Structures are given as structure tokens and as C-alpha cells.
């Protein structure tokens, strides 16, 4: 498929600019994904700091209501569509072909195309700041607020948001097709489906979700575009449309999108815990089935975002939402029992992976409150939901992303990151994260709605908002040791070698960074841990004490 030209294995990040722009190498594209996502992460982070600054004290201090609406809309849009989703796609891009022993993705040029749509889409969305205002109707852009009408979304910002997200969505769809073709057609001999590493499994399930759901989202925003610009009336009740229809179509994508944002992070953690515990993943097949079950159930819960609309059948969506806790619980116990009786090396990737476990657990538990419909009547659209979604997307996805970054950075660059700086970053981020988002539970319970630029000083929300703002800036501060660490490492970090962590999966069987064609030779693939088998011999794979010796 891919015409691989044999180059000497020079460190990829030393390539020329021309090479970066024209590359079709999945590893370079993966790095482009990751760097691009981090740029949008910092933009989204600055917007978050603006939000927290405005809310630190009662009264409007630094921006108007309209600008505030633009800022939190852009914060969520950047973080969801241009950071978390593409960041995890970047891991998939870089690591997955290596893990299955493939020389590249199935369609290298389409891979490059799907990446280059992202910066363009992000740029278009942000362009609104220069054209009189970005989209300001929230990242959900509910109709009729997002319609072109007085006090709605007049101006081009909302249209730029639609066009930008259409590009981002198309990028996701192309990427998903590419992932699926690569996984199904390009696995090395011996790499059966049930020997695939967990990261690859989560990439596979994520790609299926994206392929089924993203076209629905794209059609929703295009219909919104038609309503706004071409006289359509899909979603505007003033012209006979249906406002609830938009929410159904939007959440049919955007709930599965939550799993798009968490599954690959789960896969990353499932790679790290076995390696740093020196044990195989506990219950590999159960884990695979749980991943597939989460993906399947993910399509039947979208209306739990709409419990208060009075327009959905509540018991069904409540039941399905509760049920998703079951496969997620299975994963938790498998993760814990992977570490159980292991020999845990507390390095930075493991710290972030354990941070993922402890924080994502809270995101699961406080989600159960909203699954209970009557309780959701109290909590919906309050800061409790803001706390919940950040425990899932930050406590889950971002901690998983950081774990993966520290884990695969040596493979991508050939250099180690500094452990001390990594641990400083972890502590700052962990403390800041909980300071920011835990108080939001209490704010929401006491009645503070989302998406308000100001609150009364007598409402009793002053202290908790100030704590959250201090925590937010602590998270921002945790980026300093990260950036300094990356800078130091690229300049003069210790050489990593092929396999610095004693890894299990095939990416550790080649050089760091790998040559453009990935592998000079592959080890035999007889289990889901081929590199482990090559290191210790096949006998070490199971022990007499272990219950099912063979899968």
C-alpha cells in the first residue's frame, strides 16, 4: 500500500519544515496531531482562565456578558473538538500502526489530509474573534438561540463555527476509515484480533463510533447552516421547525463523542498499568468486551442530556445510562487487579494513570446522580454538571493524555523526560484540578446555573468560586514544568534506547524514534505481549498459579 522509501533513522523532530508539511509518515502526522492539539489546548486553557477570572469575584470585571458567552463557547469547542479528540487520534496515529506491526496507515495521503483539515477548522472557528464575535450559543449551539435573529446569533461567528466544525468532523470521519482499514488489513502475521494491544482495541471501537455518529453531527450543523443562511426551518419553531429535533440530532453524535474522548485514554491507561506493574492486563477479553459494550450502549443514552426538556421518554434513557456504569465498573476492577500483587514502579506515566483512575472514578460516580432522572431535575444545567464533565474529560481524558505523553515521548523523540519535573507537574495538576472542580459540585447543589458571567454577592457562591479560580491557575501553572521538561529533554535529555520502560507491545521492538518504515524485523507474535515474550521467553507468559493459562 504505502510506498516506503528507506531513509536512515534520523530523529524525526529534526526534519525540515518542508518535510513536516508534506509528510505522509503516520509517526510524523501523529506528532503533528499532538503538537497541534497542544496549541489548541493552550488557547482553550487561556479562555478557561478568562472564565475563571471573571467568576473569581461577583460583579463584571473584565468582559461583557456577550464576550463571556463567546469565551466559554470557544473554550469548550477548542477543548473538545480541537484538543481531546484530535490528541487521542494523534496517539492512535502514532502508536497503533506500530503496535500491530504495520509500516504505516492504510491510506497515508488521506491521513495527511485529515490532519491538515484540523488547524484550518480551528482557525476558522477562532476567526470569529476578528470578525465581530465568535459563536456564543455554547458548544451545543442549541436552536433557536443559534439562529440568525435579533438576540440570537447574528453575525458570521456562528457560521464560521459551523464551517470549522464541518471540517473537523470530516477530518474525524476520514481518520476513522483509515484506522479501520489499517487495523483490519495491515496487522502483522500472528497479530490476531485477540492479541491486539488494548490501545489498538480502543482505537478500533472509537473509529466505529466516529464513523456512525459524526456524519449525524455534521448533518445537524449543516441543517443549522441552512436555517441560518438559506431560509430553512428545520430547527426554528418560529418558522414551523422543531427546537428539540436539533438536540436529538446533536446529542446522537455528541454523547458517543464522550466515549470518543475517553476510550483511547482508557486504552492508554491499559497499556501503562501492565508495563509498570510487570503483569499482564487482568481480564484482557473482559476488557475488550467492556470496551465494545461501552461503545454500543453509548448510542442509546443521548437523551440523558435532555431529561428536563419534557420531550423524551425518561425511564428508557435513565436505564441505559445506569447500565453504562457496569462495563465501566468491570474496567475499573480489571485495572486495579492488574496492579494487585504486581511490582509497581511509580514513574510519571504511572502516576498520571493512577490519577486517571482516582479522578475518572469520581466522574463516574457523580454521573450516576444525573442518571437518576428526578435528581437530574435538580442538577441539570448547574455547576454540578460542570464538575461532572470536567471529572470525566479532565480527570479522565487529560490525565490519560498526560500519562500517554510521558509514556510514549521517549519512543517519539528518543529522549527521556525528567522524572522530577514530571512529578512536580503531576502534583500541581492533581491539586489544582481538585481545587477547581470539586467546589463546583457544591456550587451546583446550591443552585448556581452554568454559563452565567456573574452572580449575586449574596447568593453564597463567593468563596467557592474564588477557590475554583485559584485552582484553575494552579492547573495553568502545572504547564510550566511540562513545557520546561519537553524543552530540556529535546535539547539534552538522556537517550531513551529502544525500550526504556520494559514495554509489552510492538512499538518497543523498534528503535526510538522508529525508522520511517517502522521495523527492520518483528518478533514472533504469540500473545498480546510479544515484546515481553521476546524478553523473558514464552514460558514466563503464564504461571502455574494463574487460572486460565491461555486465551
Amino acid at each position: 500500500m504505502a510506498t516506503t522509501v528507506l531513509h536512515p533513522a534520523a530523529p524525526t523532530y529534526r526534519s525540515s519544515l518542508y518535510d513536516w508539511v508534506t509528510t505522509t509518515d503516520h509517526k510524523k502526522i501523529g506528532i503533528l496531531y499532538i503538537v497541534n492539539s497542544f496549541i489548541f489546548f493552550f488557547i482553550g486553557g487561556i479562555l478557561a482562565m478568562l472564565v475563571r477570572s471573571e467568576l473569581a469575584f461577583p460583579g463584571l470585571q473584565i468582559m461583557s456578558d456577550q464576550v463571556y458567552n463567546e469565551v466559554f463557547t470557544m473554550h469548550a469547542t477548542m477543548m473538545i473538538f480541537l484538543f481531546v479528540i484530535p490528541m487521542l487520534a494523534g496517539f492512535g496515529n502514532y502508536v497503533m500502526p506500530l503496535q500491530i506491526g504495520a509500516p504505516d496507515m492504510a491510506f497515508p495521503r488521506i491521513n495527511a489530509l485529515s490532519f491538515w483539515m484540523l488547524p484550518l477548522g480551528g482557525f476558522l472557528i477562532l476567526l470569529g474573534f476578528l470578525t465581530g464575535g465568535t459563536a456564543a450559543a455554547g458548544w451545543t449551539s442549541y436552536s433557536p438561540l443559534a439562529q440568525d435573529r435579533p438576540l440570537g446569533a447574528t453575525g458570521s461567528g456562528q457560521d464560521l463555527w459551523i464551517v470549522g466544525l464541518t471540517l473537523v468532523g470530516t477530518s474525524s470521519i476520514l481518520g476513522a476509515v483509515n484506522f479501520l482499514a489499517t487495523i483490519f488489513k495491515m496487522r502483522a502475521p500472528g497479530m490476531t484480533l485477540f492479541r491486539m494491544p488494548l490501545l489498538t482495541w480502543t482505537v478500533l471501537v472509537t473509529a466505529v463510533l466516529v464513523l456512525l455518529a459524526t456524519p449525524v453531527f455534521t448533518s445537524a450543523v449543516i441543517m443549522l447552516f441552512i436555517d441560518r443562511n438559506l431560509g430553512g426551518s428545520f430547527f426554528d419553531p418560529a418558522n414551523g421547525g422543531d427546537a428539540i429535533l436539533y438536540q436529538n440530532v446533536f446529542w446522537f453524535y455528541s454523547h458517543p463523542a464522550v466515549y470518543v474522548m475517553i476510550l483511547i485514554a482508557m486504552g492508554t491507561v491499559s497499556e501503562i498499568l501492565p508495563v509498570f506493574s510487570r503483569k499482564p492486563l487482568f481480564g484482557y477479553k473482559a476488557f475488550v468486551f467492556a470496551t465494545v459494550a461501552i461503545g454500543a450502549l453509548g448510542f442509546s443514552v443521548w437523551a440523558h442530556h435532555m431529561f428536563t426538556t419534557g420531550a423524551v421518554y425518561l425511564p428508557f434513557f435513565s436505564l441505559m445510562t445506569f447500565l453504562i456504569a457496569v462495563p465501566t465498573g468491570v474496567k475499573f476492577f480489571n485495572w486495579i487487579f492488574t496492579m494487585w500483587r504486581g511490582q509497581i514502579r511509580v514513574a510519571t506515566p504511572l502516576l498520571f494513570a493512577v490519577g486517571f483512575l482516582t479522578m475518572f472514578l469520581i466522574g463516574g460516580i457523580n454521573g450516576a446522580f444525573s442518571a437518576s432522572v428526578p435528581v437530574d431535575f435538580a442538577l441539570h444545567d448547574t455547576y454540578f454538571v460542570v464538575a461532572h464533565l470536567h471529572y470525566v474529560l479532565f480527570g479522565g481524558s487529560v490525565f490519560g493524555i498526560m500519562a500517554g505523553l510521558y509514556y510514549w515521548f521517549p519512543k517519539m523523540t528518543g529522549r527521556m523526560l525528567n522524572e522530577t519535573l514530571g512529578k512536580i507537574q503531576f502534583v500541581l495538576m492533581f491539586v489544582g484540578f481538585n481545587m477547581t472542580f470539586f467546589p463546583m459540585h457544591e456550587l451546583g447543589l446550591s443552585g448556581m446555573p452554568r454559563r452565567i458571567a456573574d452572580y449575586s454577592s449574596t447568593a453564597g457562591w463567593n468563596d467557592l468560586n474564588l477557590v475554583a479560580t485559584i485552582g484553575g491557575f494552579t492547573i495553568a501553572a502545572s504547564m510550566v514544568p511540562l513545557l520546561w521538561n519537553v524543552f530540556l529533554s529535546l535539547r539534552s535529555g538522556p537517550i531513551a534506547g529502544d525500550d526504556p520502560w520494559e514495554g509489552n507491545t510492538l512499538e518497543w521492538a523498534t528503535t526510538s524514534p522508529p525508522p520511517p518504515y517502522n521495523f527492520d524485523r518483528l518478533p514472533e507474535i504469540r500473545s498480546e505481549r510479544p515484546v515481553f515474550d521476546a524478553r523473558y521467553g514464552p514460558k514466563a507468559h503464564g504461571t502455574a498459579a494463574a487460572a486460565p493459562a491461555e486465551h
Partner: protein
Amino acid sequence: MASPPRTGRFALQALVVGAILVVGVGLAIFGGFDLVGTGQRVVSSLFPPIAVTTEGAKIRDLYTIVFFIAVVIFFVVEGLILWTVLRYRRKPDDYELPPQTHGNAIAEIVWTVVPTLIVAFLFVISWQTLNTVEVVSANPDQKIQATAGQFQWTFSYLPADYDPNAKQRKEPLFTQIVAVGDDGGLVIPAGRTVKLYLESHDVIHAFYVPQFLFKRDVVPGRTNVFEFTVKPEDAGSTFRGQCAELCGFGHRLMLFDVHAYAPADFDAWLQKQIATANASPTPAPSGGAAGPSGAPPGGPAGPTLAVTALNIAFDPTALQAPADTPFKIDFDNKDPGTPHNVAIHEGSPTGPEVWKGEIFAGPAKKTYDVPPLKAGTYGFVCSVHPNMTGTLTVN
């Protein structure tokens, strides 16, 4: 950190220090190290407010059950994670591999079945509560329509035989157009069943009263309905309400008060409001009510300025008036169902208020008598829509 066998002690110490920091900062901020008081405040802050409706009380009971199950799961699983990580750290002499356990079918079944039972229980009790909270009766004690618009609430008191699906809807008996304050807001009889019809004529809003533990979206194009009964013992209280669905730049301004009256007081209040509304039939053109500092009638008549409100904007946005002379404003509110007024503020629209005209819903006209103003620059603004502004030059 270059020493080869990483024991990870630094990381663990850092983790512990981090946890202590979180707790310490939390304690310091909550209550200056008053441990008992702080503990109580922390625990009560993890619960919703005490419910003032019978429905809200059921939701709060359900919350309490969910909360205690959540707390148990939290401590068991977090404890398991932390204990595992601390207990099974790699020791410097760990050269042999640990037992390579691949899984255990019985364990997998146990931790599939037990969570299934827990969520099944949660689902059943949630459904039971839902069925009692969502009950809507045919003949409630009082029917009220809450109408949401950018960016205000109005509350219409409906006749007992009102039916939103009727071909010709019955006219409300009386409409409360000011949503906040002692003279405005949603006034309801404590101890009686109130059925609320929610209508929006622009975008989606949400009716939310934290002490009801309840909210319901107000969706244009459909009429959402729910019922509530404020407990009799809460008669005489006022509860804060707020729009909970982003509805534009004025979203945070969509506040309202709920006043719970004793039933007898409520009946008297409602009769009085209906009588007043009937006595002064819809805004008489000349009935311009002056604000708190109404102009003395019969003074030297100044000019009459014409102002129109359309699409939540004034036209024109610049006015001129003579100094030290009373004048009139002919105010034409062309926004159907949306209340507006004209209020004059010193210096700019956000300066101190010097005069305020009566708020009324469109389409209607009113003529305001404005008292004499000193020379200078003023801002005029709609009290309901702070982004509707203009400038008034007095010279």
C-alpha cells in the same frame, strides 16, 4: 533522580503532601480550622437545599440514597486503588517477575453482577420517585402560565377551566410583568397544588428554583407542564428562581422571585390584582404613570419625544430635551409579549437611576411624564433589558 532502582518514594510523598494541601486549603477557607463547624458545613454543602415543595422533598430523599451509595462506592474503590499502589510497589530486589495472573472468570462475573444489581436498584427507586414527581392532575388548585422571553419572566394567572390545547385559549385573569421584588414575582398559595404551564416566544429557557430541587425547560413551540405544592409551613417565604438554559447575553439577568402566601392571603391578593387589572384596562394612551418622582401635573409643558422599542432595541438611540423643564416621552413598545420601559440614568445607562417609567408589555403605547432634569448627559435604558440603551442630552 538518576539512581537506577526507582523506589518512587518522592512521588508518593508528593502525592500525600498534595492531598494534605487540598484538605488543608479547603479547611482553612471553609472555616478557619473550626473542625466541627467545618465538618458540618462541608457535609451539608454536599446536599441540595432543604426542599420547600412536597415533590422536592421526595427528590431530596432520593438524592440522599444515591449519595450514600456513591460515598460507599467512592471509599471502597479509591481505597482499593490507593492501597494497591502503596502496597505493591516494586522493591529494589524485585528481579523475579511477579505471578503473571491473566484473569479470573469468577471475579469477572462477580464485578459484573454486583454493579448490575446496584444500578438496577438505583434505576428502580429513581423511576418510583419520577412517577410521583411527574404526576399532573386534571383539576389543580391554581393554574399559572410562566412565559419566558429574552430576558424576563412574566406570570399569568389562568382561569380554572384553562386548556392550552383549546382552539381558543382562555385569556388570563391577570398578568404579573415584573419578575423580581416584593411587588412582583410568582405569587403562589402554600399548601395548594399549582400547575405551571411553561411557554416561550423566542428561544429555550428553563424554569429553575433551587429550593424546589426542580427545573423544566421552556421550549418555544411546545407547552411544558408540571405541578408542585409548596409546603404549608413555608407560607410567607420567598425563593430565588433563575433561568437555567443559556438564552443569550442577558441569561444571568433572568431572575425571578417566588412568594409563597398563606391560602387566604393569596386569595385576597389575587382578587385585588384582578380588580386592579380590570379597573385600568390595557394601557390607556394618556395614563402615563410617572415614576417615583412623578412630575407635578400642570407644569409648563415641554416637548414630547417619541421612542420606539422593537426587537429589544430603542429607536432612536439619541434624544435631546430642554433643561429644567418637564417633558413627555411617547413610548411605543412594538415587541409582542415583551415588557419594556424607559429609565433615565445619570451620565451613562449604568449610572445612578434618576427616573423610571412604568414597565409594560407590547404591543402597546404609553406616554411618560418626565420631571425636569438638570443640563447634562444622561443614559436611557430599559429596566428589563440592560443592553437596550440610548443617550439623552439635556441642555
